[in-house]
């Protein structure tokens, strides 16, 4: 079995041989990746079911289709993404060629999480391949069946010299991080992100961090409670709440809460039936450890459970649960929930709610439900988060045109679509000067003078080119 350093050396040699540079190579790899997903859809769905009891529908939508969509986007646009970008010049540089070239960084590392083990590993991979890098892929060992599948499939479809899967737990990952990479892409928690950043600092390696946070969901003003409840339930309990962009908690007035709770209850029944544990459309908690953590939060809450609360340790099942009368210092407000528990805090005014969210770390997503555009606008302008979505949840991250990433504690850098290509590229400024006009250059040579200086001011001003 190859050691980590042997893998890295092999990939670096491949990168230095410049095999990943031509567009044709990248297209072939992306097309092969597409075949990998298409040919093995059933195995992928089964692995996800084994890991998270993920319903087939969710697996297809959030792990297969979204990846295929990104692949289509990359294949359709790769040629234009790879083109040099010509830029505007000032008078002194009018006769020169100035452009920005997108170049691969080298050997990059992608560390995936366990909640969407295909999507959150393969979508960054698409960006990395499109940008012409060699990639070390580290799937999460927590989602073990998917880890096995990825390890088996990647070498079958992608160039073994350029893309390698490295497996293991915390120890192996720490060892891996000691190596030098040209970019590290990490999706996961803040605690591990700090470790990743410290390791990257040693080699001055740039990093993209896709983290999480408590994504608030504000419901104010005139609102269609039924429609809101549908979308809220769907986005909260998708993957049993184990989504980095799931609405974590709700803030609304007492009246809204009173209208919302029965709506939530009804929608839950419409979606999953009266015995949710029997529904094939509800996921499970990924491991017993995570189940215990969530039950701990539920047991410590001082709020009132009004919907759900049922649980089954053996099945790693927690029913979609709604808790009201939750205070700001409640156990459910301590950390990112990452589970099927929805606390509702009643705060009468929108202003007070906004104020509360400002006392917390910047989340990955920020949600507001309202039929009043002034409410939406107010929240948008008085908050900060990775992304923002009004009147729905999660779906903003499915659009390849939008950069997907965090800010503050929820991370930095972003990807999806063109942004993924950029995340794994170096934007190299290129300027090709001619030999002529050396007399013009004399303006800048010593001995310096006032007259020379004033000519230079004029010719190098960005405005002077608009005269031409």
């Amino acid at each position, binding site marked *: 079995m190859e050691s980590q350093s042997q893998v890295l050396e092999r990939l670096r040699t491949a990168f230095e041989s410049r095999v990943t540079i031509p567009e044709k190579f990248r297209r072939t790899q992306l097309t092969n990746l597409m075949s990998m997903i298409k040919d093995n859809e059933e195995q992928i769905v089964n692995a996800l079911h084994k890991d998270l009891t993920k319903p087939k529908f969710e697996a297809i939508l959030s792990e297969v289709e979204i990846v295929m969509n990104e692949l289509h986007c990359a294949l359709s646009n790769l040629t234009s993404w790879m083109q040099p970008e010509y830029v505007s010049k000032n008078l002194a540089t009018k006769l020169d060629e100035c452009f920005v070239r997108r170049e691969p960084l080298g050997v990059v590392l992608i560390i995936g999480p366990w909640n969407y083990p295909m999507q959150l590993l393969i979508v960054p991979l698409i960006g990395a391949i499109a940008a012409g890098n060699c990639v070390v892929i580290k799937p999460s060992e927590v989602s073990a069946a998917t880890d096995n599948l990825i390890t088996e499939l990647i070498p079958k479809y992608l160039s073994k010299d350029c893309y390698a899967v490295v497996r293991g737990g915390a120890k192996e990952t720490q060892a891996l991080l000691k190596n030098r990479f040209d970019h590290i892409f990490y999706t996961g928690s803040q605690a591990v992100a700090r470790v990743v950043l410290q390791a990257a600092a040693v080699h001055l390696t740039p990093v993209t961090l896709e983290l999480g946070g408590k994504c608030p969901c504000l419901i104010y003003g005139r609102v269609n409670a039924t*429609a809101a409840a*549908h979308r809220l339930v769907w986005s909260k309990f998708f993957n049993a709440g184990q989504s980095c962009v799931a609405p974590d908690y709700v803030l609304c007035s007492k009246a809204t809460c009173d209208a919302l709770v029965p709506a939530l209850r009804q929608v839950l029944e419409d979606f999953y039936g009266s015995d949710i544990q029997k529904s094939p459309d509800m996921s499970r908690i990924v491991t017993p450890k995570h189940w215990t953590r969530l039950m701990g939060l539920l047991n410590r809450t001082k709020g009132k459970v009004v919907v759900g609360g049922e649980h089954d340790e053996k099945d790693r099942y927690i029913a979609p649960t709604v808790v009201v009368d939750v205070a700001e210092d409640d156990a459910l407000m301590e950390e990112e929930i990452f589970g099927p528990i929805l606390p509702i805090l009643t705060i009468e005014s929108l202003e007070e709610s906004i104020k509360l969210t400002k006392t917390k770390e910047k989340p990955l997503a920020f949600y507001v439900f309202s039929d009043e555009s002034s409410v939406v606008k107010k929240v948008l302008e008085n908050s900060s988060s990775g992304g923002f979505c009004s009147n729905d949840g999660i779906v903003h991250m499915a659009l390849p045109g939008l950069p997907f990433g965090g800010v503050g504690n929820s991370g930095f850098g972003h990807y999806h679509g063109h942004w993924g290509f950029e995340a794994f590229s170096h934007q190299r400024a290129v300027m090709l000067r001619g030999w002529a006009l050396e007399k013009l250059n004399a303006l800048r040579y010593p*001995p310096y003078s006032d007259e020379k200086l004033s000519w230079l001011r004029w010719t190098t001003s960005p405005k002077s080119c608009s005269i031409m």
Partner: protein
Amino acid sequence: MSRQQLAVQRARKSFQTGKTKPLESRIHQLRNLLRFVTERRKDIAEAVKKDLSKSEHGTELFETLGVEGEIKLAIEKLAEWAAPRPVEKSLLTVSDEVFVHPEPLGVVLIIGAWNYPWAVTLQPLVGAIAAGNAAVIKPSEVCCHSAKVMEELLPRYLDKDLYPVVTGGVPETQELLRQRFDHIFYTGSSTVGKLVMEAAARNLTPVTLELGGKSPCYIDKNCDITVACRRITWGKFVNCGQTCIAPDYVLCEPSIQSRVQEEIKNCIKEFYTDDPKTFEDYGRIINKRHFKRIMALMEGSTVVVGGDSDESQCYIAPTVLKNVTGESKVMKEEIFGPLLPIITVSGVDEAIQFINEREKPLVIYVFSNENKLIKRVIAETSSGALLANDCLVHFTVSSLPFGGVGHSGMGCYHGRYGFDQLSHMRSCLIKQLKMEGVNSMRYPPHTAKKLGWARFFLLKQINLGRLRRMMLLAMFVGVASFVVQRFLR
């Protein structure tokens, strides 16, 4: 509470009032910064003269001209840069608003360097202000006169709370780095860059690192060697070689080596006279420590031009070295001084190999008449930037990103890049609570039929342009067939 903690706290409180949000307030601060640079020209020039013995013209040319240009550009373009940026939609979001909203990050820390104390501290500040942030400005203590002037005079023009200047040495900088920022912008050495990144890791703070490296300069035998040497001489000895993008060393074939040496010697005389020591437009090394460091680098190489020095003045003459190899002392670190080693290579192949054996530099220079050769160097090397047939000037094109890669840094700035670098690009999807019927295909209970529809609708991207073109084409065909039927039968 330490002075540093207080400054950061005040900046944060001030930022949280929201006063930097309106574009008018940012433009107001930018105009004040412009006034500072123009009204205080003399104070700035005097400080730089004391720090680096740079002439007044030199300071204006290399420090303030650039800053003025950046400020004016930011003022002119701010509305465009800060506006929401629309993006491509999917079939299902056709009726929604989808855009990227540039937003301020919060409190930014700008750590300046000593070689161009005004340019590399104020240019990032322009980006920070334009993007709506507060910024703590930490000028380098090595250029102590410039730092003092900045500390004393900048608060008279800019909002004292939003943009405090915090001076100090290593312990003060370390204390600053213990505070929490929303972005750290550092210009300086790779060694300290690692420490900055490590400190930033604690708070998960993103960083921009503008570092350095040994920027190679390849002179092809097929080029106008006279003009090439003029441009290289200028690029090298500006600021006594203390420029992050100075051509660090020259690579050329043995056949042109003596010509190159001769031309550079002539240019040095032309630009800096026979006695550069007494010439106003030739500077000094920043301090004794760097003077000693640079002098020691000459060991083992042969001086062909210059070589003389005066420690009392920190003066080192414009110097050219030969008999230099990859193992020579002068090739072990970034020179950052007025020593120009010439290394002979058999041709562009060896030059590319030589360059690729080393860390990625901030810039690669190549002088050649042959476009093919230049394109080869571009394709087969990596660097922050590449400039053909001149030195330094890519820095002045504000539409080009200025930054490094690998050990020469991460992130970039200038012009719009500075604004983008210090903004958060927030993805926004504005939906309505209507059209709930369409959404139902994604809700449980899941059926194969719903899945089929969802696969088609929910994620497919549409090319609106293509759709429009297809509709236009259909219309055209319709009209054409109508015309044919009606009039041409």
